[in-house]
């Protein structure tokens, strides 16, 4: 037990109806950090949150809070509070009584409750709404009340279960900043669950990428983006071209039939690896000057840049460029050594990172799936 860990999960497994939801999960959460559990639906992120909240007990493994094992401790005795996905505000109570709920349960004197509720309303910028009914509030206001209700109890850890999923884009961006501000102001640990990678990168001190009940990678947003550990992480966080490659020796890799200089080392000679090249790290140059040559098969204009698909020997690359290109153009690709990232082969190899079936529609459909 390290001193600055507030929550520790040790070898935690959970299954429902024979389906493995969490598979031997180990995770240390530091005091006062903003940590995000990120992954597609069904990856086990919400289950992890519910374990910490006490709504669920692990089949195997232990959960520690400030060094004490808390398996079997009921939710109402834990020093954590949750912000629920659909807020779960009490419809029979007004704004004031919702925020006061936890304080009344603790039998706090009426005078102190009043002071505390007012302080909370100020913190979330909702002064003057004390007497309002919950169902007369907008989604954004309900979100703020949910935050106020949770932190009025001075939790040591605040759990947030996709709290921004129901808000529209503009409001979501504002709330991201606000949540981050509140977290810094209160100096408590936030454990945030989301499937939105951009949200995870902008808000978090550390990101935990999860899939199929396992942690795929833990690290700062920069680590996760720049040094993904496997094809799943590389694909889930941003766009990636992931190619089969062979590590010839330290600092030298071969893929697409060419040798490239890179910055990675420590692999076996001639080890098969996955090579990640981010779309924004590739330069389009005239065909004769390129390290690789190919034909443009698709161009989409996204405002800030163009997203083009280039066919190189049958493998379709996605490249983001500010130069205009046209379908059918012969182009060259120039890749700097620091644009190449080498990963060990994993169970995810070959599943991601090829844009041969890429189209705008498919991207849209998959986003709708995630919403559900």
């Amino acid at each position: 037990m390290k001193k600055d860990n507030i929550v520790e999960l040790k070898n935690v497994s959970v299954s429902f109806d024979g389906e493995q939801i969490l598979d031997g999960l180990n995770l240390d959460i530091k005091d006062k950090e903003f940590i995000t559990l990120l992954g597609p639906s069904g990856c086990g992120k919400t289950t992890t949150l519910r374990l910490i909240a006490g709504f669920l007990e692990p089949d195997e493994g232990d959960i520690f809070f400030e060094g004490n094992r808390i398996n079997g401790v009921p939710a109402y005795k834990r020093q954590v509070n949750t912000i629920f996905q659909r807020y779960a505000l009490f419809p029979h109570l007004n704004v004031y009584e919702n925020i006061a709920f936890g304080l009344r349960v603790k039998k706090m004197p009426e005078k102190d409750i009043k002071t505390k509720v007012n302080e909370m309303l100020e913190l979330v910028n909702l002064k003057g709404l004390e007497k309002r009914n919950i169902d007369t509030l907008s989604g954004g206001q309900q979100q703020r009340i949910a935050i106020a209700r949770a932190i009025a109890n001075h939790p040591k850890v605040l759990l947030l279960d996709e709290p921004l999923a129901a808000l529209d884009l503009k409001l979501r961006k504002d709330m991201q900043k606000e949540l981050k501000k509140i977290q810094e102001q209160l100096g408590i640990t936030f454990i945030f669950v989301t499937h939105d990678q951009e949200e995870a990168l902008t808000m978090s001190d550390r990101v935990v990428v999860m899939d199929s009940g396992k942690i795929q990678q833990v690290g700062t947003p920069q680590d996760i983006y720049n040094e993904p550990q496997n094809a799943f992480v590389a694909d889930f966080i941003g766009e990636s071209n992931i190619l089969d490659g062979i590590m010839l020796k330290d600092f030298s890799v071969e893929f697409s039939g060419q040798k490239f200089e890179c910055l990675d080392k420590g692999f076996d000679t001639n080890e098969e690896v996955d090579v990640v090249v981010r779309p924004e790290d590739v330069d389009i140059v005239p065909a004769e000057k390129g390290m690789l040559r190919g034909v443009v098969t698709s161009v989409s204009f996204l405002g800030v840049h163009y997203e083009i698909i280039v066919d190189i020997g049958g493998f379709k690359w996605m490249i983001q460029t500010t130069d205009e290109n046209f379908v059918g153009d012969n182009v060259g690709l120039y890749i700097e050594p620091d644009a190449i990232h080498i990963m060990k082969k994993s169970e995810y190899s070959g599943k991601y990172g090829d844009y041969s079936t890429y189209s705008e529609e498919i991207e849209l459909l998959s986003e709708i799936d995630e919403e559900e």
Partner: protein
Amino acid sequence: MKNKTSFGSRIIAAPYIVWSAIFIIVPLLIMIYFALTDQNGVFTIANIAQIGKYKKAFGISILYAAIATVITLLLAYPMAYFMTKIKISSQRMILLIVMLPMWMNFLIRTYSWITILANTGLINTFLGKLGIAPLRLINTPGAVILGMVYDFIPYMILPIYSVMSKLDKSLLEAAEDLGSNSFSKFRRVILPLTRSGIISGITMVFVPSVSTFYISQKLGGNKTMLIGDAIEYLYNLGPSYYNVASALSLILMLMILICLAIMNKFSGDDEDGGVIL
């Protein structure tokens, strides 16, 4: 209803309005007419003034109905709560069992209790085999209240269950999350959010219990005279007693309306499963 009704919905409602006029409003007016006139059709409040003679019947009716309602609530509430905790297919099964007796005429169901409670009935025969002296079960206040509870309990279970099953589980988790143990969770969240079901259950059990006459006659013998029995008895004496019987009916109806009004005050503005007065 507060909503402005459209022309179309008025047409659809027309048969219902005609129906209520013929079978509800007109009989009510006839009853009020009889209650406020003497045998010659002259206005009088003499019938109403006779209420004093039936104080006891009114008192017992209200007392028995209140006891039956409380027992029904105490049985039905945990039952409804338990039903929402089990899997959906079992919930449907139990719901079916709860409603099954309602498919049978309640006179028959009440009658069947006689064979169970009678001095030579099922229970006493069984006790006799064990060498225990027969208990006096039938023709007691207990038997009347038992009959009320048995006949009307589905009307308590169904509205409470329907409100309880709609209760958002995340609200219960939120209550726990904010420090509530089981008792405080029940008091602060479950009870207030199922209040409308309780109120409509109480109404639907209390009203038929307070005005029943069949249950008391069959299970209470001649000992317990409820107000419903008094009214029936007076009607059976012939036309000259219609005025007094109508007066008693009117008073009973007004009492029930007052009870309902008080109930609705408590049910708040949440109309889920509530009774519209």
